[in-house]
């Protein structure tokens, strides 16, 4: 039949059917083989590789999401909220769902303000996130922005507005130098912290209490095991371990006292530090000028930052912790006590002030502030009138070595150990220091001026306040504490935190101490006291000491006239005090930069601050929250 393969052949239906059946059978066999081969593929997938694919299916389905803990709140000593968390919205982009981020940001900026700095921050931070995490673009969206985005949401795949809790400091600049602020987690932070615990966290304490107490405030991150669909949307929560909120902190700061000191300083740069001598807790820590920390929370713009930098008075500088000032006459009570305890002087020691003091063999005079001098004075009256000659003589007799050793016990020249970072050390000069730092021997004249707190002496306001507290409470030097109490998430009540004692200054003769305290009492309450003006109408008894720190060294023969000297060159005004005299509840140091005289400028500020504290203390309000 194969021979009939031409157009003239005759169709043979029977042969054709046989041919078809052969072909169909062959095809069927091939098809069965193919199906079997295919099924073997399915067998391989579904039986032999089942485990691996089942695992992949499971990991497709389930993802673990971090649950960021709520940051602990911060209260002041009286229970006022000074750092809180407010509900807010941030804009996030999920990178894996976006093709062209730049174009997307351009398009988004039509709805939501996205500045150069936001873009910069976004580009800096994006590599820290996994492709399926939301990278924050902008924080703290306004209600209008949230609404505008909601209407246009369909245009932006991979962009989301996410609710979160935003840190807010209701007292703004008043507490900046205490609290610090939180800011975006950056490279350095991420290297430092436990990455696992910060998976869901976007903010971290940058300075101040927020930084120092970061571990407490942050809390413990939780997680959520969620079922997500292919687009990453959560379909179902399978398992949840709640985050443990951060510890709420109570600071020893009293906002009312802080505010009083702040207001009293007025427009002048300066610092006020007040410490409770009974327990070393810090009642007020003011550094002026300051800035609004809320600006930093969501990443400050370069322009705004430059504005702060260029503000006169350096608002970023924490004077209370780091400001170095010559203590001037405020050091005299401590020098006096050093002389008494060393036996160089006693209650009966009298010195004649003629207005000028000479070291034997030298012609250079050392002056009293009053022309013609104060006449015969003992220690209390020398303190009362701030008689330099008495302390020149005392310092000469004591010598720099003993003076250094004694004053060091009050914490001068060393950090106080307060619970916040960035504290300055100040400088308590010694023979060894001068040799090491200047490669020069110590000259006797330097001992003379060290005796009145001048020369190389540098103190910070905090150091000075803590030294006063130590003096007032009978020599118990605390490491001052800002943290007053802490309430962990599972605590019923806040647990009191106590300041550790750094040192008990040895007391050789309690009467020596009383003598110095009496002298300080006379500064305010004596008839010739340099700060007697602030005693007026006081419902409690204040003891204190004025001081003036030279900024501008007078040439020989010149007299100092404040009105004739440019503001920046005027002396710093200082005042230290404690009250009530009989039972001290507050110790304070006030420094007003270029304020002029301590008695006229600094002392009234102290009085207002003391009032704010003692008025409520004495009307029976407790000191605890």
């Amino acid at each position, binding site marked *: 039949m194969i021979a009939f393969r031409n157009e003239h052949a005759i169709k043979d*239906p029977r042969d054709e059917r046989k041919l*078809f059946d052969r072909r*169909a059978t062959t095809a069927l066999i091939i098809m069965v083989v193919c199906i079997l081969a*295919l099924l073997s593929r399915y067998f391989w997938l*579904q039986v032999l590789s089942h485990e691996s694919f*089942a695992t992949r*299916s499971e990991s*497709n389905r389930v993802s673990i999401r971090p649950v960021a803990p709520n940051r602990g709140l911060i209260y002041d000593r009286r229970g006022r909220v000074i750092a809180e968390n407010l509900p807010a919205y941030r804009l996030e982009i999920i990178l894996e769902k976006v093709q062209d981020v730049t174009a997307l940001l351009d398009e988004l900026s039509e709805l939501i303000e996205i500045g150069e700095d936001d873009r910069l921050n976004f580009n800096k931070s994006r590599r820290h996130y996994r492709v399926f995490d939301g990278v924050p673009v902008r924080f703290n969206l306004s209600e209008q922005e949230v609404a505008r985005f909601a209407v246009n949401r369909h245009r932006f795949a991979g962009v989301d507005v996410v609710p979160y809790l935003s840190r807010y400091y209701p007292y703004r600049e008043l507490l900046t130098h205490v609290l610090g602020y939180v800011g975006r987690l950056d490279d350095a932070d991420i290297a430092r912290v436990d990455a696992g615990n910060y998976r869901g966290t976007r903010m971290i304490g940058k300075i101040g209490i927020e930084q120092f107490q970061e571990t407490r405030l942050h809390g413990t991150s939780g997680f959520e095991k969620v079922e997500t669909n*292919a687009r990453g949307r959560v379909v179902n929560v399978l398992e949840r371990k709640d985050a443990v909120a951060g510890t709420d902190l109570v600071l020893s700061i009293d906002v009312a006292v802080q505010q009083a000191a702040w207001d009293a300083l007025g427009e002048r740069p300066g610092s006020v530090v007040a410490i409770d001598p009974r327990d070393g807790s810090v009642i007020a820590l003011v550094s002026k000028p300051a800035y609004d920390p809320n600006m930093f929370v969501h990443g400050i713009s370069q322009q705004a930052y430059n504005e702060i930098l260029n503000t006169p008075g350096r608002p970023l500088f924490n004077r209370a912790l780091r400001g170095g000032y010559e203590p001037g006459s405020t050091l005299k009570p401590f020098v006096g006590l050093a002389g008494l305890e060393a036996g160089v002087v006693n209650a009966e020691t009298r010195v004649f002030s003629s207005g000028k003091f000479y070291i034997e063999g030298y012609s250079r005079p050392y002056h009293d502030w009053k022309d013609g001098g104060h006449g015969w004075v003992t220690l209390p009256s020398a303190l009362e009138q701030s008689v330099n000659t008495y302390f020149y003589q005392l310092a000469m007799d004591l010598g720099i070595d003993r003076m250094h050793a004694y004053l060091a016990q009050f914490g001068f020249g060393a950090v106080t150990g307060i619970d916040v970072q960035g504290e300055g050390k100040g400088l308590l000069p010694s023979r060894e220091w001068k040799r090491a730092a200047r490669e020069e021997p110590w000259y006797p004249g330097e001992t003379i001026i060290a005796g009145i707190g001048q020369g190389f002496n540098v103190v910070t306001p905090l150091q000075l306040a803590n030294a006063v507290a130590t003096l007032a409470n009978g020599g118990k030097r605390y490491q001052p504490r800002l943290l007053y109490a802490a309430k962990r998430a599972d605590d019923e009540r806040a647990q009191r935190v106590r300041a550790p004692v750094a040192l008990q200054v040895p007391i050789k003769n309690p009467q020596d101490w009383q003598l110095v305290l009496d002298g300080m009492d006379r500064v305010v309450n004596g008839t010739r006291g340099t700060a007697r003006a602030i005693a007026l109408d006081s419902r409690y008894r204040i003891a204190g000491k004025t001081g003036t720190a030279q900024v501008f060294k007078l040439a020989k023969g010149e007299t100092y006239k404040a009105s004739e000297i440019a503001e920046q060159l005027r002396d710093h005004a200082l005042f230290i005090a404690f009250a009530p005299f009989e039972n001290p509840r507050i110790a304070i140091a006030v420094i007003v930069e270029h304020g002029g005289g301590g008695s006229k400028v600094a002392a009234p500020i102290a009085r207002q601050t003391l009032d704010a504290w003692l008025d409520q203390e004495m009307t029976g309000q407790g000191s605890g929250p």
Partner: protein
Amino acid sequence: MKRLLPSWLGLPRLDPVLLALLLLIIGFGLMVLYSASGQDIDMVYRQAIRLGVGLFAMLVISQVPPHILRIWTPWLYGIGIIMLLATWFLGVGRGTQRWLDLGVVRFQPSELMKLAVPMMVAWYLHPKVLPPAWKAVGYSLGILLIPTLLIARQPDLGTALLVASSGMFTLYLAGLRWRVLFGFAGVAVAAAPVLWLVMKEYQRDRVRTFLNPEVDPLGHGWNIIQSKIAVGSGGVTGKGWLNGTQSNLEFIPERHTDFILAVLSEEFGLLGVMLLMLMYLLLIARGLHIASIARDTGSRLLAGSLSLTLFVYVLVNSGMVSGVLPVVGVPLPLISYGGTSAVTLLAGFGMMMSIFSHRKFIK
């Protein structure tokens, strides 16, 4: 007496075996679709309506005797070619020109060619002596290549492949000699590099992805990887109806259309796949049986090639879902969501039923 009555006044003449198999597959398919659509009952209704239309078309066509169908064949083929040419100028569709908008319905002329090409080749070979002579082979190739190239140009490689294979199967069943067949196969392999040159970039990507899906797991490789995960995680017995996580959580792309077999594999496991394959094989075997007992050459070739084409659907789709064949837009017959393909297939089965019910007229 019986023969004086028009057949359509009596009981419709159907092949109960074929009908039973079709209804089984359709029922299973709707069940899987309910799950694949995310339990969207409206989608199931829509598909059921289309299948109903297809079944109705099948019923109508099955009542038309094969020789009448053969009279229509050249017209059908001619209209199909004209419409394919029309898509060249008037076609609509995303990135391709597959659809003709006829106002009321959108219509894919290439779908029509899946029927028209084997019909036309069978029509042409019907009066010829088989095995076909060289000249007949040449004409047959012409008949199948013109629409194939027009469809490939759209571009729609999947349909072009099905159309070409349906024509080739007709030739094969007509007894085209093995030597020639292997020769064609050789030419096809040799032409592969040329094909690569004329392919669009997305088609090349599909081939690249097929060769190594893990290169771009979130992009082009995503479909294949997620499909394999769905199949593999199904295991022997499956995760259970409506319980497929890959499907419900939308990891499987095109899960109610081209990749619906992945959903079935995930939820019904290897047993489900085997059951489905068995049903398809029975359907094909039944088709071949109908062809074998057909009244005349043209009917035999048509029924045979339609059966074999069905196999290509199954093989290409299930190969694609399990990652052994590249992604080509070929639906799983009677199960994938979509109207045109279902109606075409059922119309084809209508012709087979017609061939079956008119077998008795031969001696």
